[in-house]
């Protein structure tokens, strides 16, 4: 075989691959698993609250009524800085209004129906976006893990010069360690474009805060909003004098008339009920990777311009495409299923990676039963803990302490692994199976009962 890559480079790459893998595998596994589950973010919200009113569309006048109803109920409370109306979509056919104070579902006539109760879905998203560590720190850690995933991908390729040549060779039933290595390498090759796409977009999104602060500090006199304004558009100048509710219905009618190809996804009110208020409609474009285009309107509902995410500068279009490419919500069920399949494959690849390293150590005569058990506690303990949070949502309710349940159960799994290294794997597999079946049955029963 021609030695395309020098032997010492291969060896160094393998060492780097192992070092990065051991450093980041546990957290990367959590991110990949939660990312895979989060592909169904909208569907989970429907499972959480099956009795919320659903509709395929809502009339502009009903949206206006709903906003007025919600804001009327907020008199005497701290004025909200923003108001978001989620409009019905194929994946989440509900109308939901969110302010700084509350979130509520509305019916097709614009009447307030019930408070939004999707704490488990939000917990899941928070676990994936920031490992439940609030603020910039959590997002930066997740962004850094995206960078590590990119580096793992590249070092993995360099460390295995035959990886493409053997890309279809899978000795899946080999028990001597070859099978595990084949699974790791094959899944690695065939998830390569997917892994690079989600790792790069994830790193870009996660590191957006510190990068944004860098841009703001050096080029925009410390104004973070100004750093992002050329990309996503800017908000109007605030004017705190009170003003009547803007004509959102007119804005939505204008959207239907002037931009029939755009599907309104959100109505956003900046500084509602003030003279500086601004109406934006975020609308999706079919067969585009961008999450949408922002259409701006004045208080009378007159169109004033768009941000340019769909047809502006290339940087705007690239940035707006990163989110859908990361979350897999750009092509309905076929794309979602593909993301779930490849996400699960990434989880399997990460799980196998550490087991391969442990196997090599064992074949060299160095056994680490507790380390192996601890890794099994991660592989099986993470989905088990996640299934328990879901069960808690269905049994305790929206107020269940999901963050505490997840991390304490994971900690308990790790402690159990150290105390009972021989039985932890089977035990957690059994508990995971029971949790998944129990959650599934309970969710089905609640949906049927509702």
């Amino acid at each position, binding site marked *: 075989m021609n030695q395309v890559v020098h032997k010492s480079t291969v060896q160094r*790459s393998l060492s*780097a691959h*192992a070092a990065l893998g051991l450093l980041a595998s546990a957290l990367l596994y959590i991110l990949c698993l939660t990312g895979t589950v989060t592909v169904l973010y909208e569907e989970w919200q429907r499972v959480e609250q099956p009795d919320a009113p659903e509709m395929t569309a809502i009339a502009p006048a009903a949206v206006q009524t709903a906003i007025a109803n919600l804001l009327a109920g907020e008199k005497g409370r701290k004025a909200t800085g923003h108001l978001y109306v989620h409009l019905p979509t194929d994946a989440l056919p509900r109308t939901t209004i969110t302010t700084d104070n509350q979130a509520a579902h509305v019916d097709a006539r614009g009447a307030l129906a019930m408070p939004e109760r999707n704490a488990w879905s939000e917990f899941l998203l928070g676990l994936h976006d920031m490992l439940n560590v609030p603020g910039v720190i959590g997002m930066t850690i997740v962004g*850094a893990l995206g960078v590590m995933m990119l580096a793992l991908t590249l070092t993995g390729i360099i460390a295995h010069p035959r990886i493409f040549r053997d890309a279809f060779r899978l000795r899946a039933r080999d028990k001597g360690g070859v099978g595990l290595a084949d699974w790791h390498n094959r899944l690695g090759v065939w998830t390569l474009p997917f892994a690079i796409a989600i790792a790069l977009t994830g790193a870009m999104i996660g590191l957006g805060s510190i990068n944004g602060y860098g841009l703001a500090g050096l*080029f925009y006199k410390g104004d973070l909003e100004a750093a992002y304004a050329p990309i996503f558009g800017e908000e109007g100048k605030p004017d705190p004098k009170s003003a009547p509710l803007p004509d959102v219905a007119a804005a939505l009618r204008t959207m239907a008339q002037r931009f029939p190809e755009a599907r309104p996804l959100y109505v956003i009110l900046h500084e509602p009920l003030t003279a500086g208020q601004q109406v934006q409609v975020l609308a999706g474009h079919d067969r585009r990777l961008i999450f949408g285009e922002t259409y701006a309107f004045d208080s009378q509902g007159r169109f004033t311009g768009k941000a340019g995410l769909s047809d502006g500068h290339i940087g705007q279009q690239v940035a707006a495409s990163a989110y859908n490419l990361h979350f897999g919500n750009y092509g309905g069920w076929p794309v979602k299923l593909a993301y779930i399949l490849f996400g699960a494959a990434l989880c399997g690849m990460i799980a196998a990676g550490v087991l391969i390293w442990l196997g090599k150590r064992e074949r060299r005569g160095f056994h680490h039963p507790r380390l192996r058990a601890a890794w099994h506690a991660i592989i099986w303990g993470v989905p088990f803990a996640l299934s328990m949070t879901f069960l808690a949502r269905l049994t305790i309710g929206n107020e269940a302490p999901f963050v505490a349940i997840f991390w304490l159960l994971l900690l308990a799994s790790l402690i159990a692994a150290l105390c009972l290294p021989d039985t932890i794997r089977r035990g957690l597999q059994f508990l995971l199976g029971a949790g998944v079946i129990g959650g599934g049955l309970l969710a089905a029963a609640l949906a049927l009962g509702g």
Partner: protein
Amino acid sequence: MSFPIGLLWIGGGGAVASMALLRHAWGKPSRSVPLNLGAWATLLAALLCGMADSGAWGMAVVTLAALAAAFLCLAHAALAAPPGRQAASNRRVRMLPEGAEPLRLGARFLTFALTVPGACLTALAIALAARAVAGRIGLHDADGNVLMLFLMPLLWMLLVMLLLFQDRRRAQLLWLSLPALASLLILAATGTHI
């Protein structure tokens, strides 16, 4: 969402066909250049069909179709694989000490400090310098800022790899400090307030 028949379907079909052709080519006892080229050309044509139909979205969908087809080939390989027990690799990756070798915790911590926060800061400096240059050559702020947002993680990844490939600490420090210094000079030269 439904996929209308058109170039996108042709691209999707081409992507599946390219994977089947690649599977066939790589399964032969010796490499066939025409088959390999044919497979890659088919994949390229499929991607171009996706792009012609719906731009980046079409390319993404065609790529997913190709990957799904490859996974089907893999699933077949897994199901058809005979049971075996070959000797697996025990290549040492030098992550943990063997025998009486020292653990070198201090050195490990320093490597972590250089490759994670150290490389992060250097990557940030280079990306910001690139943003400053982009501004000077007339790139719009949107393009310059997004360039910086994507460049930073890519540079960090490259630095992580470069640092881990070095045997000597001095080389690692040079790889971190020289680009950072050059970036600071570029920022100063372009009139950016540091």
